[in-house]
């Protein structure tokens, strides 16, 4: 697995070039699951759009702080880059570099979650609770479930770091990093949609 002058790996992943059916099946299963998650978030975003004007006596989209959420969005986007760099390092069997990037991704994920907790706290103080209005319910359900997905991802990243430190992420198990990476990038692209539809298009 060598990097060629044109910046492309000369060899494919071992599990691709050898056509290992177990690896291929696991990856296909991951993609199918991510597909089902697309339906899940699609339904949640639809629900939010249905109720976006049903604010009752409570606040609506004017409560959003776009500069703050933009910073959180940037953090999550950059975590996708550190994740792909971690995946790349493990593909090259560079465990140390891989752990550094995994650690960076974990920190960025935790920063995003901390930002979301802060944002929710501010909104509750501003009068927007889950029970305030259909707008509040659909907003907290959508962004809250996304936050739970990020938290799940952070847990998986921490487990990968622990596995790597114990020497249980050998090259033949590199697939585990790739599967977690797929999940993490998916959570990122869902946020790209949420940020555009829920925040930017509503102000």
């Amino acid at each position: 697995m060598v990097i060629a002058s044109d910046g492309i790996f000369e060899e494919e992943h071992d599990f691709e070039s050898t056509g290992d059916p177990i690896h291929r099946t696991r990856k296909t299963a991951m993609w199918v699951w991510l597909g089902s998650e697309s339906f899940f978030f699609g339904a949640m975003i639809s629900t939010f759009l249905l109720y976006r004007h049903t604010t009752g006596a409570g606040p609506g989209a004017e409560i959003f702080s776009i500069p703050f959420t933009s910073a959180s969005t940037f953090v999550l986007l950059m975590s996708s880059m550190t994740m792909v760099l971690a995946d790349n390092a493990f593909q090259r069997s560079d465990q140390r570099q891989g752990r550094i990037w995994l650690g960076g991704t974990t920190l960025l994920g935790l920063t995003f979650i901390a930002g979301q907790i802060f944002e929710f706290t501010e909104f509750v103080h501003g009068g927007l609770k889950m029970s305030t209005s259909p707008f509040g319910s659909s907003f907290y359900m959508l962004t809250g479930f996304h936050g739970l997905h990020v938290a799940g991802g952070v847990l998986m990243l921490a487990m990968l770091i622990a596995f790597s430190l114990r020497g249980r992420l050998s090259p033949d198990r590199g697939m585990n990093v790739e599967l977690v990476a797929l999940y993490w990038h998916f959570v990122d692209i869902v946020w790209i949609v949420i940020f555009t539809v829920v925040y930017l298009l509503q102000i």
Partner: protein
Amino acid sequence: MATTAHAHPAAKTYWLVGLGLAVLTAFEIATPYTDMLDPVRAPLLIAMGLAKFVIVAAVFMHLKYDLKGYRWVFSIAVAGALLVFAVVLAVFQAL
């Protein structure tokens, strides 16, 4: 359905794509605050969001390089989700 996969890019490509995504996000954030873009604000934001979605899926998630089957699975799912989205909004006349 093709069964061959292509090589994944090197770290340099990921850095460049990450930089591009950061620049795109900066434009995205500036758009609602730029008065002259008001007439095209919504389509512009949707286009930029879509571009980021496609870039992350294609490069970071390796859909551009992996087996075409994965691309099909995800594309069909996203198309299905969009259909659900459109049907729900149309039924409730929110479109």
